[in-house]
């Protein structure tokens, strides 16, 4: 048999040999393949596994719920409101056009909007939602829900949007949120990714802006496994974020609203603060603006209208408006002189209507003079000559030093965007800013709060508070509670003033309002224990020429609005046991006594008698108290004290 095979098949041994070689070669190649498996899975295995995880697991952030803002008694100022909206998922829609047609029967979809939507839907991944309509009414939303089976791909959703229920009454204080700009994102550092979340809004002004970090909270994190197309498959990790802090402001919204209404059409500001803990109870700036417009984006036309308004509604005048303090500054001049020991209680000056310095005449507002004036009379009747003389004695540098202790020329520590420090000029300031030496005449101007001097309503309120509390450096503050925990007030430091000196000035301020011939006598509160002490001011905006003085100074009514004087008034109450300080400024309003003082009186009445002003508190012959339109006649369950 073997022989036979050999005969028929002489190449069999060659085949066997070569088959062996072939199998050897194949085994060798298989070994190489095995080696490659080892290399990929064992040697490089962890690298590949890590790369695989990076490719499929995508972390994404969960937007934290923004903290809400309330007034000191819990009235909502900035809240998160449910936003009913309708989105479309392309992968679930059969015929997008048909679905939109049917949806359009329930909610309005204009033709251009429809066109834009179709484009957006086509360019969005099939499994991602496209927002069809937002801020639907509940009725619309409910109807979409009811018709959901007939609207394949349409999903009703509830999101959160910021809402400011008090509209323009507190707009300057709450500020507003808006989509972060490129710059905001660049500056955000670690929070960049949070700001890039869709629908993310950040504070752009007001408390929303200064308390951004607290209000925003911390973003949560989810790690989602996604397929190669980016479609989420399952959640691997879910870490909830920390909601932003709820803030209770020091603001008394009822008072704030009243102050806004009281200012009415005027352009101006009212600031009310607690003279001990610095709580800002009202900080009205008129005209106001509605922050809600900014949340969803303002139209260009609306924006331009706001920006170009002569009365600057977007400017928070309480902190950003600067005005010559005028006669309201005279208390500081008196205190500087008393502190320096230059005058005593018996000091008196004769006012003849003007004094001369070199070749210049400095006029009193009263053309033929006040006669002999002591400190109390001079403040009460706001005699300019007395304070020209005092300023000259004190000198500008000493005056500035005292003024700064009362907050004039220093930045109020309230943090609000646009807060200004104003100007308290002295020799160094003029050298640095004007590169000119100081002129003696400028000291006289400073003595009546004119010249270079500029202060904001908040600064004037702070100044008044520091006088009222006996000379302690109180700082204004806006945030009273964070997540229900009281924020401790800063401890007070002294200004170095003598109590007797302060009392003397306070006595004079009492006389301004409560004594006949006082400039604010017509705005007195005639109620024991609720009386007000204060000081009027009228800040000149234009220069009065000698020629005009000769023919008689023009009345404000005869001037265009922009050239009229600013009306100012600062006060504290109750006079015998002070608690609150107020500053009022009405831009181009005219005289402080006739325009600003009545506003201050009304606000103080509202503050001290929140329920009903007792008969006789507004004496006969005085302007009647302003009663706001009936919209404010809502239930008021507060006691006399505004503390909750």
């Amino acid at each position, binding site marked *: 048999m073997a022989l036979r*095979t050999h005969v*028929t*098949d*002489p*190449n*069999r041994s*060659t*085949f*066997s040999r*070569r*088959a062996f070689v*072939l*199998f050897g070669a*194949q*085994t060798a*190649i*298989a070994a*190489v*393949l*095995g080696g*490659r*498996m*080892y290399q*990929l*899975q*064992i040697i*490089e*295995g*962890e*690298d*590949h*596994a890590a*790369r*695989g995880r990076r*490719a*499929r697991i995508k972390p994404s952030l969960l937007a934290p719920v923004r903290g809400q803002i309330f007034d000191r008694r819990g009235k909502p100022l900035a809240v998160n409101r449910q936003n009913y909206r309708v989105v479309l998922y392309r992968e679930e829609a059969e015929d997008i056009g048909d679905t939109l047609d049917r949806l359009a029967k329930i909610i309005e979809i204009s033709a251009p909007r429809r066109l834009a939507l179709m484009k957006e839907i086509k360019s969005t991944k099939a499994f991602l939602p496209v927002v069809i309509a937002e801020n639907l009414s509940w009725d619309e939303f409910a109807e979409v829900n009811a018709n959901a089976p007939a609207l394949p791909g349409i999903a009703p959703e509830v999101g959160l949007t910021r809402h400011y229920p008090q509209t323009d009454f507190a707009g300057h204080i709450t500020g507003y949120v808006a989509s972060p700009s490129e710059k905001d994102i660049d500056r955000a550092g670690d929070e960049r990714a949070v700001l890039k979340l869709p629908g993310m809004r950040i504070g752009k002004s007001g408390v929303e802006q200064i308390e951004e970090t607290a209000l925003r909270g911390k973003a949560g994190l989810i790690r989602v*496994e*996604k*397929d*190669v*197309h980016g479609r989420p*498959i399952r959640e691997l990790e879910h870490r909830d974020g920390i909601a932003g802090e709820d803030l209770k402001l020091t603001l008394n919204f009822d008072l704030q609203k009243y102050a806004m209404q009281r200012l009415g059409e005027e352009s101006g500001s009212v600031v009310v603060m607690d003279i001990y803990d610095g709580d800002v109870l009202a900080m009205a700036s008129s005209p106001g603006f509605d922050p809600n417009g900014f949340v969803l984006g303002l139209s260009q036309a609306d924006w331009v209208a706001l920006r170009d308004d002569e009365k600057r509604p977007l400017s928070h005048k309480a902190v950003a408006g600067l005005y010559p303090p005028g006669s309201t500054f005279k208390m500081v001049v008196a205190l500087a002189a008393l502190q320096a020991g230059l005058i005593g209680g018996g000091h008196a000056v004769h006012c003849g209507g003007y004094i001369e310095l070199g070749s210049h005449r400095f006029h009193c507002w009263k053309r033929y003079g006040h006669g002999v004036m002591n400190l109390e009379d001079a403040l009460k009747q706001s005699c300019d000559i007395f304070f020209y003389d005092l300023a000259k004695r004190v000198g500008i540098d000493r005056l500035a030093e005292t003024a700064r202790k009362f907050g004039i020329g220093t930045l109020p520590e309230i943090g609000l965007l646009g807060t200004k420090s104003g100007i308290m000029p002295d020799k160094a300031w003029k050298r640095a800013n004007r590169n000119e030496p100081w002129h003696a005449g400028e000291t006289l101007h400073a003595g009546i709060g004119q010249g270079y001097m500029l202060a904001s309503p908040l600064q004037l309120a702070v100044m008044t508070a520091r006088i009222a509390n006996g000379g302690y450096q109180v700082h204004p503050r806006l945030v009273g509670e964070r997540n229900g925990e009281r924020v401790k007030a800063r401890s007070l430091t002294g200004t170095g003033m003598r109590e007797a000196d302060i009392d003397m000035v306070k006595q004079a301020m009492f006389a301004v309002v409560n004594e006949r011939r006082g400039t604010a006598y017509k705005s007195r509160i005639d109620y024991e224990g609720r009386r007000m002490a204060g000081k009027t001011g009228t800040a000149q905006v234009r220069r009065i020429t000698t020629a005009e003085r000769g023919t008689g100074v023009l009345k404000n009514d005869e001037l265009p609005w922009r050239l009229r004087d600013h009306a100012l008034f600062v006060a504290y109450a109750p006079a015998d046991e002070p608690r609150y300080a107020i500053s009022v400024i009405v831009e181009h309003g005219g005289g402080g006594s006739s325009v600003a003082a009545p506003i201050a009186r009304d606000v103080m009445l509202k503050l001290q008698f929140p329920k009903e002003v007792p008969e006789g508190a507004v004496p006969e012959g005085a302007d009647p108290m302003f009663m706001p339109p009936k919209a404010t006649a809502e239930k008021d369950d507060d006691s006399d004290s505004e503390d909750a």
Partner: protein
Amino acid sequence: MATLLHDPSRISPTLTQKLLSLNWALVALIIIVATIGFGMQFSAANGNVDPWARLQMIRFAISFIGMFVVAMIDIRFWRGTAYIFYAFALLLLVGVEVAGTVGMGAQRWIHIGPIRLQPSELMKIALVVALARYFHDLNPARIKNIFILIPPLIMITLPAVLVVKQPDLGTAVLLCAGGFVIMFLAGTNMWFFAALTVGLGGAVYAVFASKGQEWQLLKDYQYRRIDVFLNPALDPRGAGYHISQSKTAFGSGGSFGEGYLQGPLSRLDFLPEKHTDFIFTVLGEEFGLAGAIALLVIYVLILLLGLGSTLRIKHVFGRLVASGVCMTFFAYFAINMAMVMGLAPVVGVPLPLISYGGTSMLVLLFGFGLLLSAQIHGQVAFPRRGSML
């Protein structure tokens, strides 16, 4: 009776004898591999029998029966029909060229009634059978003669060129490799292989030299695949994407894998063609090195059983058919594994008995049928020359 038993080569064995002498170990291994395949099809469909596993099982069942039928038929019949088979396959290849369906950028499919056929797959076996017959019929004394190599070279080149034109470089390489291995095993002159090596080197050079020329030998996408294979970083999101994704998923398997049905990248569609060309990656990700090596070992065992049995076959046709089938089988799994592990360019070669696909399953089991037939009929005597049966 006794004389008949003493001279088994004179007559055909009975059906019972055939079944007894069947290489059952090989059959068992084939079933094991196919079963692994069903499991992987099930996994590739994220744990569903549809769309792949069920159909694959039906195809295997039909092909498996076909394998038995082929194995039972006398090997001499297959020698007789060898050239007809080859001519038929060649005709289909030409038919594809004329009326084929374009699938995945290449013309590969032909429809015969309800059956969709890939003639290039059929040709792999047809070529093996035809070459085996050629060398079987050849006078053994002339085997070292160089001129006898001309007909087999034509037999290899003709289908290879047609397949390249489809274009399907992978199959063309498989055809050539299978053909040359048969020529080698037939005992042809070693000088020929020396010359072939030089010739192939020249051809590879020509392929690269022709790039961008008017006479460019390969399609642009084939060059791109080669470029990307040589440097996957060239195009990480495009052509190199397949290779890098496959390596990542395969490597993620580690020692024991992520677990059956648990391969994350396979689950999440990161793998292209995960049920066909890249099924080995799914296996690697889910079963790790242990699973991958196990499959490799089974494949090598099939090779060993196949090639080992050829040594007992007494006729040239049987030996060459059996070893040709083994070579084709080897080329399938070696190229596919090399491809998904980034050792070879992506050329579209399936993993034998595991990748989803009807034609390759049918053709492979037909091939194994021939191999088994050659073993069963290893002792039969052929008429000395030329005649059909």
